[in-house]
């Protein structure tokens, strides 16, 4: 829909110029943002792809040797890669459903009428506004093996007999961080699902209860279909972000103890940061991105429909 129906009082020459201007203007208005993103996003990405085909270690800057796909072949024989992949999958399949369920419960509650609803709605989103570093710090203090409140509470209730070093124990570290990330991300689901709930017409429920439908059947046949679209979009988005997020893990354990909290993006980051191996690190980043691409494309297709 081109809405350029400006009256033209001038002669034919300036009319042609105006027509040209109308064609160029949208692109001219767009070009600053597009050019800058090309320079600071797409150009660096190509550089990552380029680095991944080289043997590039930062403390030997003279050596930038073409190795073709060698880095990629190495990845598949790298035990740490498989460990990290395993953790990444665990990380996603536990965190995202946990966030979704807790978010759904919260949204259903927030959709009820009770006097302090506005307050509850404002407070529930707080975890989301906090810097991940602060979240990591806060939970590290809660998990602290000597003075942490979690051990303290569990000891008092009698669930534990001795305190557990949650983050230093290879068996619990990953799950402790998963709980932290669930805490950080469930408000996102709550807010999104709440928006979905509020778009369901009240009359559906009225009609259903006239017909004698139980609350459970109302939930199953009206509420769930009504929010399925929002829920699916939220799950896709959240899967992408949970998969990508590594700052909380990095601050809480740095991947340790051993490799017990390595995920793929973290492995790639640490390979570059600690070992300064930018070639191999880039190859890891590329591999991880390609794995994620399926979900990203699914999400973009849904958004493309929404744009129209």
């Amino acid at each position, binding site marked *: 829909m081109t809405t350029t129906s400006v009256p033209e009082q001038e002669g034919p020459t300036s009319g042609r110029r105006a027509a040209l201007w109308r064609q160029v203007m949208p692109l001219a208005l767009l070009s600053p943002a597009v050019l800058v993103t090309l320079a600071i996003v797409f150009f660096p990405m190509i550089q990552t792809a380029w680095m991944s085909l080289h043997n590039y270690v930062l403390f030997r800057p003279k050596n930038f040797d073409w190795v073709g796909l060698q880095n990629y072949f190495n990845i598949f024989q790298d035990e740490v890669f498989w460990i990290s992949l395993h953790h990444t999958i665990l990380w996603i399949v536990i965190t995202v459903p946990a966030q979704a369920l807790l978010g759904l419960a919260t949204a259903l509650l927030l959709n009820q009428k009770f006097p302090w609803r506005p307050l509850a709605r404002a407070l529930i989103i707080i975890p989301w506004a906090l810097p991940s570093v602060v979240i990591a710090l806060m939970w590290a203090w809660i998990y602290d093996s000597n003075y942490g409140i979690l051990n303290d509470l569990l000891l008092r209730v009698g669930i534990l007999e001795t305190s557990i070093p949650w983050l230093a124990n290879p068996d619990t570290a990953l799950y402790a961080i998963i709980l932290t990330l669930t805490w950080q991300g469930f408000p996102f689901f709550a807010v999104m699902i709440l928006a979905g709930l509020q778009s369901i017409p009240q009359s559906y429920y009225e009609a259903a209860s006239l017909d004698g439908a139980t609350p459970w059947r109302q939930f199953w046949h009206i509420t769930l279909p009504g929010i399925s679209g929002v829920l699916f979009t939220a799950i896709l988005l959240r899967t992408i972000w949970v998969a990508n997020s590594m700052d909380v893990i990095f601050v809480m354990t740095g991947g340790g103890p051993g490799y017990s909290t390595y995920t793929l993006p973290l492995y790639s980051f640490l390979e570059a940061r600690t070992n300064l191996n*930018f070639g191999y690190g880039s190859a890891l980043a590329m591999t991880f991105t390609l794995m994620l691409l399926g979900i990203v494309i699914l999400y973009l297709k849904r958004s493309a429909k929404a744009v129209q």
Partner: protein
Amino acid sequence: MALGRKSTLNRVLTVDLPMLAILVFTLGPYLWMLLTSLTAESELFTRGPSIFDLVWSNYERLFANVGFARNMLDSFIIAAGTVVVGLTLSVTAAYSFSRFDFRFKKVLLLQFLLINMFPLVLLILPLFVLMRQLGLLDTHFALIVANSTIAIPFSVWMMTSYINGIPKSLDEAAMTDGCSRLQAMRKVILPLCAPGIIATGIYIFITAWNEYLYALTLGGQNVRPITVAVQTMIGEYQVQWGLLTAGGIVGALPATILFLIVQRRLVGGLTQGAVKG
């Protein structure tokens, strides 16, 4: 009357109490951190945090010894710079997306969404190499550029959806009255967008303020934003949880307050998938 009391009790049991439980889970860790930060370091390991004698000593030490004020200034410069870059570049682009039809419009719009889906590592490695070659490591400029990779796509989406909500007839009326297209944009649409621009700007500010991995990689001795400062403290003062939690509270405060102010507006952008979670 009896019925009314029964339904109130019912509501308390099925709504208020579960909601309260979720809120305790949500706010508990934060309040625990707050309480810890207000407890004297010497008491922390003997009696534990308590609400009965609160002290400011951790905060005083934070600003006197650790030099937290400078870190906050760094964070502020970077966040404000990112807001300026993000908004200037995105407002005209958003206007163009909202008002014109041109070839590849959808592809261009979706590529902005795509950017936010890529893992940060994919960008962090090349940006580090690039800034190192240009000698820009450890400058505010490098971090503003890095944060703009998140801010530009986000604000293009936010602003496009915001301008979409302003009727096209307003531009047309202005142009019938003799304004050019650009004048219509500047004099009619921009003022109407002000709330959207402010909300977007605040959100960019929060994201840039909270950002950590870029700050860690591209910052250094001279430029050390608050998030990196807090993380460095974890290494240095592992046992001084009072000081650490005080740092956490101060570091999180600006973003939390701004967030509570604009949260309603952000829900719109969120449901469109533009807000990074």
